[in-house]
């Protein structure tokens, strides 16, 4: 049965309701195939950061949906996303995770491509028909590739919304992440956590803006923190949600959303430097602040520090928060690869960048005090859906509450509403139901 037929059999509106979704959207292999077609092989998808390929000939392999790709930096300094598939008989061209290579030679029959994807060498070219033109057999270039502050997005659709249109107000969240660097630039080439999680990819996307899970999934951290605060005779946070209640859950459109912590930070007076000040020598802090002020001016620098980095999901697969860029790759209906990469500040003192690494290791990655439990909880999320007698997954927290508009005109509810996930599902339904 071909894709069109298969897809037309699924009534997505019956599965995705405003306040709940049907378990089948996470577990049905036909829906997974349909998503590849309608989301992963059509929409803007995050694939990497340009700091991974800083120099001519640098490359990094990966996947766009399930298709193997090659991200390269050409001699024209342009970043391209190519399919990692020889156009002769289909072999993957490049096996390494990353490297530098002026050309790629296929191990089957030796066809050679430039790092721009042009077919350069065909062994015994003379044996091919005269109308065989090398120009027709370059590596498949993903037709649309755009960058925003080094974040590389790719779309397999030949036409469509520009990246800027697609990102909309979410672009500002990327700004907040990068603006914290004294050079305005971050680098994402300091290692990456590669992880496999035993659940559908949408469980990852949802969870990434689910503040409700922090109390329980990450209860061990809360417990340890309280233990230490108790010992330190610090005043405990307000009861209940603590300061979390001040956070805004925002709908940024196109399936994007964030947990906007700025209202909380304004109240608690937390600033970005304050978050690590204990560990960093005075001089490094000073150098960092100087850099920031030089770049942005004093007022703007202070705003940046107060606001801190965003915590935002850009649909379908980018999650940017604290010091990390995170993205997911769908493997099958019940498995997802996730990649979490710490970013360092170009031009910042080493001590600050080291602190970013150490913080990353503490919480995230396969052995992190937070992410390890997320990984387990995702698996339980998928396992539970085998209990198919119960059909629905609830997504109704805060649905009865009014949706406000913040100072940027963005719809929000107070944190701990499931508005963020609902905004993902609304967009999902649109994409999956479009003709």
């Amino acid at each position, binding site marked *: 049965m071909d894709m069109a037929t298969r897809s037309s059999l699924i009534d997505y509106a019956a599965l995705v309701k405003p306040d709940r979704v049907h378990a089948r959207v996470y577990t049905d292999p036909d829906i997974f195939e349909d998503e590849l077609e309608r989301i992963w092989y059509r929409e803007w998808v995050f694939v990497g950061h340009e700091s991974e390929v800083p120099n001519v000939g640098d490359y990094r392999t990966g996947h766009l949906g399930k298709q193997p790709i090659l991200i390269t930096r050409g001699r024209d300094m342009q970043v391209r996303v190519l399919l990692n598939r020889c156009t002769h008989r289909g072999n993957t061209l490049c096996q390494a995770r990353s490297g530098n290579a002026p050309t790629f030679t296929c191990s089957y029959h030796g066809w050679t491509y430039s790092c721009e994807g042009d077919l350069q060498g065909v062994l015994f070219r003379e044996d091919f028909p005269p109308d065989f033109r090398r120009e027709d057999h370059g590596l498949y270039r993903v037709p649309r590739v755009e960058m925003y502050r080094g974040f590389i997005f790719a779309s397999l659709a030949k036409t469509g919304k520009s990246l800027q249109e697609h990102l909309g107000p979410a672009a500002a969240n990327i700004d907040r992440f990068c603006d914290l660097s004294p050079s305005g630039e971050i680098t994402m080439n300091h290692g990456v956590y590669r*992880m496999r999680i035993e659940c559908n990819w949408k469980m990852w996307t949802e969870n990434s803006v689910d503040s409700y899970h922090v109390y329980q999934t990450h209860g061990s951290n809360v417990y340890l923190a309280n233990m230490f605060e108790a010992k330190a005779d610090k005043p405990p946070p307000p009861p209940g949600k603590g300061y979390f209640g001040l956070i805004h859950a925002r709908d940024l459109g196109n399936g994007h959303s964030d947990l906007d912590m700025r209202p909380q930070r304004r109240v608690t007076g937390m600033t970005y430097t304050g978050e690590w000040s204990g560990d960093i020598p005075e001089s490094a802090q000073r150098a960092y602040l100087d850099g920031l002020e030089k770049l942005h001016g004093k007022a703007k620098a202070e705003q940046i520090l107060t606001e801190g980095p965003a915590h935002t999901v850009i649909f379908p697969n980018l999650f940017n928060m604290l010091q990390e860029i995170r993205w997911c790759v769908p493997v099958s209906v019940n498995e997802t690869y996730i990649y979490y990469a710490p970013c360092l500040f170009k031009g910042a003192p*080493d001590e600050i960048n080291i602190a970013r*690494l150490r913080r990353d290791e503490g919480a995230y990655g396969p052995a992190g005090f937070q992410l390890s439990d997320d990984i387990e909880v995702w698996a339980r999320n998928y396992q539970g859906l085998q209990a198919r007698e119960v059909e629905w997954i609830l997504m109704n927290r805060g649905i009865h509450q009014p949706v406000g508009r913040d100072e940027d005109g963005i719809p929000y509810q107070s944190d701990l509403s499931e508005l963020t996930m609902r905004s993902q599902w609304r967009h999902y339904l649109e994409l999956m139901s479009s003709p």
Partner: protein
Amino acid sequence: MAFDRYAVEQFLYREARLADEQRLDDWFALWDEDALYWVPCNEYDIDPTRQLSIIYDDHARLRLRVARITETGMAWTQEPRSRLRRLVSNIEIYDHPDGLVQTFSNFHLTELRVNRRDPVEWIGRTEHRLRPHGGDFKLAYKKVMLINNDHEMTQLSCMV
């Protein structure tokens, strides 16, 4: 050689056993104050000031790692606890500066979870640095080079 080979081996086996049997407080007690428990990420040898590690624990963070499991009851990856069993083999022992004993060994650790059908296998090479201490040793440094540290992996919540 300045070391007692049998004593060194038995220390490594004891460390393995305490970790396997999730006697984590006893396991933690093996460590010295200047502990570094290091599991590099992506490659075996990296510069930890510029590259990410999977674990890069000093004594304080290691204490938290253990307490999270033993004290909070909310480290879901270890609720219920994994069953663990590891083989430690190919032990090579060297003298190390400052009176330490350095060992390299290979391991194969099987982890079985009650809510998983199949076990997870952790395989790699370990460098230990032991400090002689009252007829026994203290563990000053442990670096674990996981064979799959650049592959998509599941969570690592046991002491590898």
